[in-house]
């Protein structure tokens, strides 16, 4: 078995900024990321969608690089850039020819030190974000399903349950004072990690990080709201109208164990057994064999990158001649089967090989294919911010490859329980679903 070893060096600057350098001279390209440990889960109450809106504001100008300059300077150096907001982190990243490394570090340091934006920038990006929500959610069939539909059904703590893209009223209410307060609270060097991957030498990378970032003053350690959920003791249901789509849909989400526990590794393998493409039990049963569903996929989203309550979610779009209950009954049978009979030694062996292969693909995987080493950057960042241990990227695989059949069965019994799940039904408003009485039963 060939193993991959990622060479890296890491340090913490005097202001608390963590730095990870992962040199690799395959291509004269360097990927630079800055991760802040704040995502939409812990954004302020009454300001839903703010973490994401704020991410847009980070491209609107800093003390020495006014509006449009960050984008212009990266593109005109031959590079690409973007940012994204998730549950527990927000990231900013760029891949550039390695001769532009200092320029990128200068730009990232400038906006970490002093964001400089005005009301006009805020209004502009609020408009842009609303069109983003329309194009991804409100004007698309199954837009936001289930990532936006599930949280309010599954969770009781506002942190986990609110609209992460933001209610438009909340977006409208956000002002510059909110922007500056959020920046001051969370965008401090001691709440972030800088990552430099690719065509750079370790010592050079660390020296440059010191040169550009060490002068940024540390801030007070941010206070984080508690995202803990009250214990769930009943199955939860929610209903959302599908305005455009033609097929009835449902999503089933089960609460997952904490990261880096033995149960977490076992559930990851069970996730692979259930989802895992056309070989997965759910796709095979619902789409290929019973032919109830048109799509059946899902899993534990961003398995290395969450730091609060999260679910394994299955998303099913099924044929209109079946009712939701029929599709759900078929889903339940697949779950019951695996809980009762477990998985065979042969199946587990297949799952582990595939898991290892997928892990390597994750490390190399780009965003939309244009951002080299995005996946490696993401894992290094999460292992640094949540575990203070970037080296985990080289060792984390072991835990998954050592999982036993018994552990999987035990974890399944513990987590795949009806009282630990939530279901969202998203049915077309206009399709005229058949009444229960004359609906077909599954084969």
């Amino acid at each position, binding site marked *: 078995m*060939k193993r*991959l070893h990622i060479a890296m060096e890491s340090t913490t600057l005097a202001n608390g900024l963590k730095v990870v350098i992962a040199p690799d001279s*395959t*291509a*004269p*390209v360097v990927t630079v990321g800055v991760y802040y440990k704040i995502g939409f889960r812990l954004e302020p109450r009454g300001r839903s969608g703010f973490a994401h809106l704020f991410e847009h504001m980070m491209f609107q100008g800093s003390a*020495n690089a*006014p509006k*449009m300059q960050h*984008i212009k*300077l990266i*593109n*005109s*150096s*031959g*590079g*690409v850039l973007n940012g994204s907001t998730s549950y527990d982190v927000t990231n900013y990243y760029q*891949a*550039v*020819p*390695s*001769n*532009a490394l200092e*320029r990128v570090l*200068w730009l990232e340091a400038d906006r970490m030190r002093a964001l400089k934006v005005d009301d*006009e920038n805020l209004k*502009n990006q609020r*408009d*842009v974000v609303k*069109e983003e929500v*329309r*194009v991804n959610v*409100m*004007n*698309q*069939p199954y837009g936001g399903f289930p990532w936006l539909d599930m949280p309010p059904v599954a969770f009781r703590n506002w942190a986990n349950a609110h609209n992460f893209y933001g209610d438009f009223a909340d977006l409208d209410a956000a002002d510059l004072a909110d922007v500056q307060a959020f920046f001051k609270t969370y965008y401090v060097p001691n709440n972030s990690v800088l990552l430099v991957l690719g*065509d750079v030498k370790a010592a050079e990378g660390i020296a440059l990080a010191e040169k550009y970032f060490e002068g940024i003053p540390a801030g007070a350690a941010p206070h984080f709201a508690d995202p803990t959920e009250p214990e769930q003791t009943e199955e939860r249901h929610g209903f959302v109208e599908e305005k*455009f*789509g*033609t*097929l009835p849909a449902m999503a089933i989400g089960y609460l997952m164990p904490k990261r880096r526990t033995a149960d977490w590794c076992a559930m990851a393998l069970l996730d692979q057994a259930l989802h895992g*493409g*056309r*070989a997965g039990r759910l796709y095979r049963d619902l789409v*290929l064999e019973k*032919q109830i569903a*048109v799509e059946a996929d899902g899993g534990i989203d961003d398995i290395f990158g969450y730091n609060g309550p999260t679910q394994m979610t299955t998303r099913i*779009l099924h*044929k209109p001649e079946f009712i939701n209950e029929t599709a759900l009954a078929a889903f339940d049978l697949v779950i019951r089967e695996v809980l009762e009979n477990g998985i065979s030694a042969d199946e587990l062996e*297949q799952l582990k*090989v*595939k898991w*290892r*292969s997928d892990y*390597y*693909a994750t*490390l*190399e995987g780009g965003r939309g*294919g244009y951002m080299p*080493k995005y996946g490696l950057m993401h894992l290094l960042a999460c292992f640094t911010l949540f575990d203070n241990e970037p080296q985990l990227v080289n060792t984390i695989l072991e835990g998954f490859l050592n999982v036993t059949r018994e552990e999987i069965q035990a974890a399944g019994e513990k987590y795949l329980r009806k009282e630990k799940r939530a279901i969202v039904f998203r049915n077309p408003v206009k399709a005229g679903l058949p009444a229960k009485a004359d609906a077909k039963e599954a084969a």
Partner: protein
Amino acid sequence: MATRTVEVARGVPELAAERAVTWPRRTKARLSNGLEVILAESHSIPKFHGELFFRSGNAAVADRTPGLGEMTATVVRTGTAKRVSRQIEEDLRRIGADLSSSAGADTSAISFAGLAEFPEPLLGLVNELAREATFPEAEFERERRQKLEEVKLERTQPGFLASERLRKVLFGAHPYGQVSPSEAQVAAYKREDLQAVYRESYAPENALLLLVGDFDSQETLKTAEKVFGEWKGAKPATKTSAAPPNPRGRRVYLVHVPGAVQTQVLAGCHAITRKHPDWVKLGLTNSLYGGAFNSRLVMNIREDKGYTYSPRSGVNALRQHGYFSVSAAVRNDVVAASLTEIFYEMDRLRSVPVSRAELADAQNYLSGVFSMGLATQDGLLSQLSTVALNELPDDHLETYRQKVRALTPEDLLATARKYLDSANMQIVVVGDRAQIEEQAALFGELEIYDAQGTRLS
């Protein structure tokens, strides 16, 4: 037109000296059966990526029925003389592999990736799919019914409706004119029709095998000969298609989606293929216009005016014809304002030469992004397939950046005048008629359709 002056940055570090870009050596070979093979080593992760292309896609058999190439590719993976569907999926998982089969307008492909430790079993399975697919009746029937739901569903996606209409307008009866089959056409698919396509197109003389990854090229070439060597089959005869229409004057096509809360705008005109000598010039012109984040169009209608999240332009290079297009999903009340800016930026590039500084920025962008493909196995694979399938010169990867750097403001002005054909752009808007009809009609004679393609007025 931008309403805000742009301030410049202060104290920006200069760029260091550029490091040379060295593309990996490609090993090119033809197996004894005529199969063309290209390999390149990339040791970034212990995996390899590959693609078996056939130089016939949906267009080659569009005279029979639309989407037949895609349906054939879909069913190819569902059974061979040696393995049933479930066995295929489990065998893939056993060696940590992913595989997909699909067809576009010009090619059909089996794409795969797997662990470096198992090259032969994966290539063996690919070989089986290419030679011994059995198109089991029940599998075909399930995939056909599945496809029926998919073609209904795609008619609810604004992006699909826009590109479908634009392709109809630009290509008419040419095979490129229909991007997807209708429900009735899918309902009429026959297993025998798929098998006929398979027999004709899935032949070594019509194929190209690309492999990129953590392997030794000579050894892998031997494996390929061993696995694929016995496969026989000739190239299918190529058919010539009718010339596409050449629409003159702007016309507007509104696809009515009741209740749409946003409008998908898409405008396009005929352009060129990748083999055309103007390709690099048009690529650079496009990146200045709307092909990059800091392009004029994005800065204007996103960063200045906030009309849209995702404006972009691109040159769509199909094998026989290419077209230029620009798209944006915009707020309903700024459809006319957005189109005005879309044409303003086009006309500006057609009338005023770009400054040396802006040209240099765009040249840096295009040549920098081009090298990103080096960094990953699938990135490299995609660069190699572009070169091979478009029959570009062998040194394309090595000379591209130089060609980009050689262009002048005059080249760009001439290119914009030739290909950003502002006066003859065909405009598609997908949205709620009641909210956008008046705005759309300002830009040309208006035709209105519903999502099913029926003309309303």
